[in-house]
């Protein structure tokens, strides 16, 4: 094989060094070539073993630390690339390097080699405690911190580790101190340390380091103080409060550190404290030192000066945290309030005043965290909202950010409002919210329902005030479509389910009105009842609320209880709810159960009905569209050449999208489509770089051609590998293709002008034909391109067009936003050749065809598609096999089958590797036909990753 040629020189050098043992040091060049041999999988075993011998000699004889370092590195590579050699490598390193070397650095490096081999094999490294400690005590600082960092890998006894770590917190080198502290944090488990003195020693040492000059040491010290402080708190019930207070004060004193990281750590740690004296806690909300803190005795028998010092370090620390310059700190403070508010009701009331103001923060993350903390408080019944809060609180309903307003609504569902005034404000706020964001209707209805049920009395009094408003106008037409009336109806129907007997005061006619909104309401109330039940409930109430109030048998202690059967339910509900999907209909005859479920997360209930979470799907599509909208916005960045920024932003979008893919199976296609689109935009950004004015022409046309080629391929995949695309979407893809061709044509130096021109004109005519079909307005760019392509078509054919004309066209282009609707299917295939890998080969008999058993899964491929299996050998000779889909399953969505693919062109070799892949013919007119004997007629789009199949002659494996 020709691959062996460059290697031969290395082998010579190995041989020469083995022939000449006196020459024990290897040159850097030799080492480099050895490495390339080691990492190449095809290097024959004999070469490898001679490399191993060379390295062994080098390790034994060399004195040069640099050579030894490289030798060790190579041995480590050798062990990782050739698992069979790892035990000999490990033995060699253990016997020579570790023991004989007098350099701690080298010893540490050999330890690293040993440890990584051992980790791969899942066996422990047998390093005894004493050698570990003595290595730590060596003079090299870097080795010391490496050892401390990696101590876990060597399974050193925890007690030895503990003393070592504790000792090294005294090291003059800050980095060692930090590592030692981090190590201590890892050991702060009751299972490791039982000795009170030890815990106190570690805690106090960490406390001392809170005053370190280096930020990162302080930050590690805060973690250590928190970890060991909590140990100390848990140690003894009697001293629990004392130590908890002590720890709390220590952590508070770091809340005003100048380093942001330290502050974040401090506030994170504060959130872990579960008990603390109330007066200290209250002091954190006031920058002034309060009288009570001065007088109290919970600081133990400390002298007065110390109490004052503690009080002043605690003073207002949470206020400072909430108004910090860095949103990370503010967020962490909000989070820590979740646990702290549980400690004291008085504290939680005061903290709430602050939290309400935080809703005005400029960072969305902080506002969201504040709302989450409030939700947490509400679930613990600590959220005492007052009139003064309402402006801020309801303001966040109006927040432009979806997640903020939806978090606010979640809180409203649970909150207990103190009086009618605040209740009215809330209802008005919700109605306002509904009018501005009709897309959130379901969520808002649900909140109204809950809030009405939680405050039955207030709800009734509002409804009675505005009853006339809800009456239909005199013509007799039911006009409940205004958002306000709909919202009030929802509020009204919740009343009978509330605690009291106020329901009687709701005019029954309102329930009949509500029936007209049955579909919309039932979507909102999936967490409470299904549509049939709702209808039954409404019709019952419309006859007589008195009756229902009795019948519903509501108990005071458990108001939202239990199933009550309502008889005789007309089936006509089906006609009313025709706007809503069918899953709500349960198909039961005659009667339905009013299944009143106690407050449940809507998602949970929805998933009962659908088998997948309802909220999530809307959320997913919405979020995806949000991201896609943002993609549109980066077009100016691409144009102005901020390629790196664009790539970074795209990467973050991609990560965001990827989270959806893992969440719901239903939108896999849409997610894949969006990802593919991001890929296209990325490639477009890279291509655009070449079209920036500042870019020199000499950048290499090859580079541009490759980039354009990639872009075209990605676009083609986008066009061919998805089903359920709307005309609009297809047009958008075609527009991008047009752009690609235009870009290619507008570069003078670009090759294949004629072919590109042809592609451009076919694509343009395709665009025209689509435009004729629908009522879609063409973009400026499209119309300009079709004008130009018409010109070139009609002018004397064959003459290459002026690149500058095409360049002019680029001005018209701008990215349009893709919108997904959850309808896209992803055409893809999975291909598995069972029981075949580098170890297990398929047998073949020379000169006879071989059958390769393939387990194939095809997604979203219909029978019209022409699917091929492509098999390629190392010499690029290719064979195609057609898959007749009619034979394999009837469903278009998923076909799963096993098929034995015949391969005829068996080479005359002992063994070979076949790369196998599934492709689908593109059916687009702009794709050139390929004339291949026995192969596909058109260009293939590949639907899966290439698989390697290992074959070897019978009797050879």
């Amino acid at each position: 094989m020709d691959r062996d040629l460059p290697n031969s020189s290395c082998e010579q050098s190995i041989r020469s060094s083995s022939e000449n043992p006196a020459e024990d040091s290897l040159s850097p060049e030799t080492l480099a070539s050895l490495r390339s041999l080691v990492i190449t999988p095809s290097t024959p075993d004999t070469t490898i073993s001679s490399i191993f011998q060379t390295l062994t000699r080098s390790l034994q004889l060399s004195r040069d630390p640099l050579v030894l370092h490289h030798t060790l590195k190579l041995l480590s590579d050798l062990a990782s690339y050739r698992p069979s050699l790892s035990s000999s490598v490990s033995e060699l390193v253990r016997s020579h390097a570790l023991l004989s070397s007098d350099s701690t650095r080298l010893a540490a490096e050999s330890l690293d080699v040993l440890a990584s081999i051992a980790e791969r094999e899942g066996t422990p490294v047998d390093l005894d405690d004493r050698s570990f400690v003595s290595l730590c005590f060596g003079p090299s600082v870097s080795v010391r911190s490496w050892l401390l960092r990696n101590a876990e890998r060597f399974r050193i006894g925890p007690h030895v580790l503990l003393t070592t770590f504790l000792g090294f917190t005294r090291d003059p080198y800050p980095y060692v101190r930090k590592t030692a502290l981090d190590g201590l944090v890892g050991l702060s488990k009751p299972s490791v340390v039982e000795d009170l003195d030890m815990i106190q020693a570690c805690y106090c040492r960490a406390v001392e380091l809170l005053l370190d000059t280096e930020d990162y040491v302080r930050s590690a010290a805060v973690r250590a103080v928190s970890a060991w402080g909590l140990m100390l708190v848990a140690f003894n019930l009697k001293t629990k409060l004392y130590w908890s207070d002590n720890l709390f004060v220590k952590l508070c004193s770091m809340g005003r550190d100048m380093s942001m990281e330290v502050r974040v750590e401090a506030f994170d740690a504060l959130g872990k404290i579960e008990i603390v004296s109330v007066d200290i806690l209250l002091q954190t909300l006031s920058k002034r030192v309060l009288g009570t803190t001065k007088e109290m005795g919970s600081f133990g028998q400390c002298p007065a000066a110390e109490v004052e010092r503690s009080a002043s370090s605690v003073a207002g620390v949470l206020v400072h945290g909430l108004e910090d310059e860095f949103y990370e700190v503010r967020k962490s403070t909000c989070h820590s309030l979740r646990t702290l508010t549980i400690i004291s009701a008085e504290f939680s009331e005061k903290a709430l005043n602050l939290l309400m103001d935080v809703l005005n923060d400029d960072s969305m993350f902080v506002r969201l965290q504040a709302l989450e903390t409030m939700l947490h408080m509400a679930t613990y019944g600590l959220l005492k909202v007052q009139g003064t809060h309402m402006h801020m609180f309801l303001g966040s309903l109006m927040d432009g950010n979806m997640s903020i307003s939806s978090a606010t609504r979640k809180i409203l569902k649970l909150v207990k409002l103190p009086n009618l005034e605040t209740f009215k404000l809330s209802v008005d706020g919700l109605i306002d919210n509904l009018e501005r964001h009709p897309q959130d209707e379901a969520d808002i209805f649900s909140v109204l329902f809950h809030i009405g049920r939680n405050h039955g009395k207030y709800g009734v009094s509002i409804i009675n005030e505005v009853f006339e408003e809800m009456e239909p106008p005199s013509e007799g037409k039911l006009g409940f479509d205004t958002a306000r009336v709909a919202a009030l109806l929802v509020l009204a129907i919740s009343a009978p389910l509330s605690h009291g007997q106020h329901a009687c005061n709701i005019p029954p006619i309102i329930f009949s009105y509500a029936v007209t909104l049955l579909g919309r309401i039932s979507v909102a109330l999936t967490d409470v009842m299904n549509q049939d039940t709702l209808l039954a409930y409404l019709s019952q109430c419309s006859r007589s609320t008195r009756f229902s109030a009795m019948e519903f048998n509501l108990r005071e202690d458990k108001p939202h209880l239990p199933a009550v059967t309502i008889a005789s339910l007309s089936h006509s509900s089906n006609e009313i709810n025709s706007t809503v999907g069918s899953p709500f209909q349960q198909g039961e005859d005659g009667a339905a159960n009013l299944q009143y479920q106690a407050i449940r997360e809507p998602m949970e209930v929805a998933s009962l009905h659908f088998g997948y979470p309802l909220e999530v799907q809307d959320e997913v599509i919405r979020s995806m569209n949000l991201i896609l909208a943002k993609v549109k916005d980066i077009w100016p960045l691409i144009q102005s050449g901020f390629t790196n920024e664009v790539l970074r932003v795209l990467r973050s979008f991609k990560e965001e999208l990827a989270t959806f893919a893992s969440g719901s199976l239903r939108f896999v296609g849409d997610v894949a489509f969006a990802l593919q689109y991001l890929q296209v935009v990325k490639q477009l950004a890279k291509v655009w770089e070449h079209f920036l004015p500042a870019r020199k022409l000499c950048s290499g046309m090859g580079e541009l051609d490759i980039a354009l080629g990639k872009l075209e391929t990605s676009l083609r995949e986008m066009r061919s590998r998805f089903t359920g695309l709307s005309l609009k979407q297809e047009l958008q893809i075609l527009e991008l293709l047009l752009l690609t061709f235009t870009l290619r044509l507008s570069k003078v130096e670009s090759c294949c002008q004629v072919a590109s021109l042809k592609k451009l004109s076919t694509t343009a005519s395709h665009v025209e034909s689509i435009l004729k079909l629908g009522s879609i307005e063409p973009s400026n760019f499209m119309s300009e391109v079709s004008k130009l392509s018409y010109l070139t078509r009609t002018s004397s054919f064959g003459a290459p067009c002026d690149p500058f004309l095409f360049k002019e066209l680029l001005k018209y282009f701008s990215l349009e936003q893709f919108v997904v609707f959850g309808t896209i299917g992803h055409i893809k295939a999975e291909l598995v050749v069972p029981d075949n890998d580098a170890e297990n080969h398929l047998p073949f008999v020379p000169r006879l065809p071989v059958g390769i058993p393939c387990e194939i899964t095809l997604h979203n491929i219909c029978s019209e598609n022409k699917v091929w299996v492509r098999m390629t050998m190392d010499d690029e000779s290719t064979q195609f096999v057609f898959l007749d889909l009619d034979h394999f399953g009837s469903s278009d969505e998923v076909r799963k089958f096993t098929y034995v693919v015949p391969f005829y062109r068996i080479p005359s070799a002992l063994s070979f590797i076949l790369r196998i892949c599934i492709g689908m013919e593109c059916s687009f007119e702009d794709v050139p036909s390929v004339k291949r004997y026995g192969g596909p007629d058109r260009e293939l789009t590949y639907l899966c990753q290439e698989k390697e199949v290992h074959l070897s002659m019978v009797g050879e494996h």
Partner: protein
Amino acid sequence: MAIECLVLGAGQQVGKSCVVVSMNGKRIMFDCGMDMAYHDHRRHPDFSRISEYGDFDKALTCIVITHFHLDHIGALPYFTEVCGYRGPIYMTYPTKALAPSMLEDYRKVMVERRGEEEQFTSEHIVECMKKVIAVDVKQTVQVDKDLMIRAYYAGHVLGAAMFYTKVGDSAIVYTGDYNMTPDRHLGAAQIDRLQLDLLITESTYATTIRDSKYGREAEFLKAVHKCVLGGGKVLIPTFALGRAQELCILLEDYWERMNLKIPIYFSSGLTMQANMYYKMLISWTSQKVKETYSTRNAFDFKHVLNFDRSMISAPGPCVLFATPGWISGGFSLEVFKQWAPSEMNLITLPGYCAAGTIGHKLMSGKPSKIDLDKDTQLDVRCQIHQLSFSPHTDAKGIMDLVKFLSPKHVILVHGEKPKMATLKGRIYSELGIRCDDPANNETVCIPSTHHVEVGASNTFIRSSLNPNFNFSKMSSEDESDSRLKDGKFMPWLQVKDERAAEGILVEEKGKRAKIVHLDEFLLMLGEKKHDIRFAYCFPINTDNLEDTKSTDVSSSSNALSVSGRSSWLPMLYIKLSDELSGGNIQYFGEQIQVESFSVSLCLKDRCPYRIVDSPPNKCEAVFFCCAWSIADEKLAWKIISILENRNYGTL
């Protein structure tokens, strides 16, 4: 070497900041401000105290200016161009950019409006700024071989900085004005934990403690929102730089979130120009502004439009920012006259308004009529909202900074005398740091760190490279008194690493001082290591030993034989073993050993270690001699007290 601090201005007053610090032969002037309250020579610092003969170039190494406010920079052109200082001047880039327009404004007001004598001309300002060297935050500048300065972010106004100054081993920080809490457009002061001899800090709000700014912001937004919802107009009189940007960012953010469409106007002029400065100097703004800068410059106000005079009487709600802040004249007064009579409108007032201005009149109570001049009276029916956003740190912030830096000494300037005294007391009592609040023209001398450069022997260096920590356990008798040392809890187990402390400083005549390792030192001296041991010889009343002695020995107790004497030690051993819990007690026949403590019978008649010569009853006492090394002193006295049958602690 001492650090000398001459306070030329802002000593026990707010105004004309100017402090001259002499350290290790260098003399630095911090700030060169003027006092706006005076119109005679008192408005400038008394420069003659720096140099009698006016030779300022020799007398000063450099000038450092913290920010562009006139009480910090106002006297600079006068000092350089009129008094003739030609040395270097340091300030941050934004200060350098903004100072000329501030100075020019001031000059115009003084000369053109009030017709005063000119202190300096426009050319002077230009010439003066040419001497300025601009620095960046955290940039270390070597002024000369010995003097190093470094600016730290101070908040307060755009470009404000604190300055760290180091000459030799003496280091100080001069803060200028600073803010420890961030606002919407500027960050909080930020500094490293430095080793300082002296901290000179402002103390404008030496006793004020401010609540969270969130509440004030929420109130402001609520008032503005209410007013515009009701169709009213909001007038926000501000000065061009600082508050206007902060409030505008606040409103923009709120407008964005609440999706409000009501226009916000900036009256043309300096404010728009100031916004431009902010846009350029984005790295000096708050974290939030910096973070969002890549997507949107926070000073590119989306909702802000330029205001035209004709719009004053246009119908419909709006918000207008107009200068000057105190409604003392200019555009804000013009608008005020038009808008004040309507109840629907709202006027916000800055936290502080100079006496005599309309702002001040509005602040004091809620007047229904205001006299604009002798003949004109204005009905004021609009709502008034007072803002209290201050760019200065409060007392809590000062304490926090002092605590974080923990300097050896603090000097307070730029504050009111009685309040400064209170703060001074707090700094001393809570932090234990000495603090001064000198008056103008006073000099404070404080001692400074002085390091000696020494060589180090190889053995010493090697020994400091290797870790050498050891653990010490406090012995149990320390329990009662010293576990809470200085109010701090001390654990039983402590860890020490004394590798650096083990060196010995050797100063030989004519040679450079050197640190050597302990072993080397002995070698150098040719001496052996000596241990200090304490010795004590004391009588033990034999009656006391009776309790533990067996009867056959007691029978011959009045005639002590040599053989009788030898039985005393085992008895002591038993007694000690009983009473001394823990500790490694060993009995070697001739003596008893506990750690380094040893005790044996004293057979001498005249023992040099004997303090009590004659016991009360000679025949009943036996003398014992004991010795110990210093490490076990407490243990030794405890054993002795056991042996003497006394309670420990009565010694």
